């Protein structure tokens, strides 16, 4: 069983996403440290991509800031290595198919695993195409994490039954970003997932307030927060670590 399971043991998991290298390597490393120390259960490390088609404007801009600061896939691996000196928290990458594919899937997962990552989320690699990466990921002990969307319907059981690590339940149509309300019938989706697997399910896309986090954590095994955290990074520059810590504490309180 992978380290990812630790995030869900006897608690609701708070999963925190930040783009690696946003706005620069050092600040980004400090941001991740602050988030971990403040009580996140699992962190998603975004490997920036030039054209992130599943992201809303907040994370798109973070990717641009990170790439402009000279962030590369190899530097993201270094960042995880730096974190691993102090923390055993589960870490998953979140990036797009091309940075992994072009790096060479086997080489990518070998280096990712050596750096200390536990899994990967690739939003533009659906179930049908997972063969592109899943084998290499498994070879190096990394979980290829599946997503389930409000439109998945008859696909839910098949995807859930083969899921590894955790299941990323996409709360809403569209791209990542803060939403004032989430209207999808998530209870029905989670029910189908639970019928098919024991793999934990976490809800992401649109969650930003403690109230939303509390509500979503009643439905699922964890909540994923990205854009709201990235916005704190964008607005606070070098002062972001303290603000992020404060935010994570407010979010985890109600879980």
């Amino acid at each position, binding site marked *: 069983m992978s380290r990812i399971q630790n995030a869900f043991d006897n608690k609701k998991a708070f999963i925190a996403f930040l783009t690696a290298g946003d706005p620069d390597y050092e600040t980004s490393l400090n941001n991740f440290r602050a988030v971990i120390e403040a009580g996140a259960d699992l962190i998603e490390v975004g490997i920036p991509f030039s054209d992130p*088609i599943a992201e809303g404007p907040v994370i798109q801009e973070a990717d641009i800031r990170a790439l402009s600061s000279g962030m590369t896939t190899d530097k993201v691996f270094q960042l995880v290595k730096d974190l691993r000196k102090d923390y055993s928290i589960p870490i998953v990458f979140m990036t797009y198919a091309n940075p992994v594919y*072009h*790096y060479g899937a086997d080489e990518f997962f070998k280096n990712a695993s050596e750096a200390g990552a536990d899994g990967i989320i690739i939003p533009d690699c659906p179930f049908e*195409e997972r063969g592109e990466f899943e084998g290499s990921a498994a070879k190096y002990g990394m979980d290829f994490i599946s997503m389930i969307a409000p439109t998945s319907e008859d*696909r839910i059981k098949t995807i859930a039954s083969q899921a590894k690590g955790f299941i990323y339940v996409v709360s809403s149509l569209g791209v990542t970003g803060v939403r004032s309300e989430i209207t999808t019938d998530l209870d029905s989706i989670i029910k189908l997932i639970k019928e098919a697997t024991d793999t934990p399910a976490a809800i992401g896309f649109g969650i930003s307030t403690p109230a939303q986090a509390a509500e979503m954590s009643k439905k699922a095994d964890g909540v994923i927060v990205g854009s709201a955290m990235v916005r704190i990074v964008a607005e606070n520059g070098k002062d972001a670590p303290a603000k992020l810590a404060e935010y994570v504490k407010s979010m985890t309180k109600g879980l």
Partner: protein
Amino acid sequence: MSEILENAVKGRFGEFGGQYIPETLMNEIHKLEAAYEHYKNDPEFCAELDRLNREYAGRPSLLYYAEKMTRDLGGAKIYLKREDLNHTGSHKINNVLGQVLLAKKMGKTRVIAETGAGQHGVATATAAALMDMECEIFMGEEDTIRQSLNVYRMELLGAKVHAVKTGTKVLKDAVNEAMREWTSRVDDTLYVLGSVMGPHPFPTIVRDFQSVISKESRAQILEAEGKLPDVVIACVGGGSNAIGSFYEYIKDEGVQLIGCEAAGLGVDNPKNAATMANGSLGIFHGMKSLFCQDKYGQIAPVYSISAGLDYPGIGPEHAYLASIGRAQYVPITDEEAVRAFEYLSKTEGIIPAIESSHAVAHVMKIAPKMPKDSIIVCTISGRGDKDVAAIARYRGVEIYE
């Protein structure tokens, strides 16, 4: 369903193609695939599309013997496949009539599309107006400036145009934004992709609708010359007019197929969009194909004088045809394209789109070296009215539209 999920390795051209898109779109893309498989064999659908092609788009388009050009270049006989004469002024109408009709049959009430030069946007807005569909077009902000006339045209046709301000603000960014929009609203909306790119089934659907070009030209050249051409030439961005121009000849092994891509300031200059010359294998915009990218797989900013060829990738079927050696792809610079633009205007009285001028430029290179009894069919994918002001500026003449 689960059987489909397990066995799905479809929509591939060799190793190229596939369906690399977010889970949110997967059921919709399967629905599209099923609808297309059904309607492409539905006699009523085919008859309706055929009628639209003839009575609305003006098909068949002419295959014109460019006698003066032939004489002037002194080699192969040159025929021009006149897609510029279609309604809306380019080959894009062939695809949109098919896709918007398909959207209508699927019960959709809204279409969205990306556009580069504006040709596909104008064509989509036109088909949407004709078939009573709501229409929204995504266009890079840079391109809305380069092609402001087309923006107004789309609005005139009732479409809403979104100037895309993210990324490099050109065609690839317009595709990103159209895909994002589609994931937020799939129920009533079809993304009418403009080229033979994106996730399966788009490269196949667009190719099928565009292959009317070669279906006609093959029959027309046989009628005119009693034999097949030696060379078929078309410009390539994503590659829709090229695949349409090539498709019916792929089985005719003696017919050489040549795609002309945009080399901008030159293949060795960073400012180019020559994917075949400079690209490498990648996965982007839903497909595995060749892309201009850096060593970490970040998509490279590309450049061409032609907004329609200003794309960092190429359709998967072209990547496949290149990999098996069935088609060749050559880079053409801005300067060569502009010279061809001017040459065809002066020689034949035909002002070609700057995109199509890339194909004309290659004809000018190879025709003189070919025997007089050989034949070139070159597709003029669109008309050049939209480019006149930009070419004037390129030549240092300031014109305000």
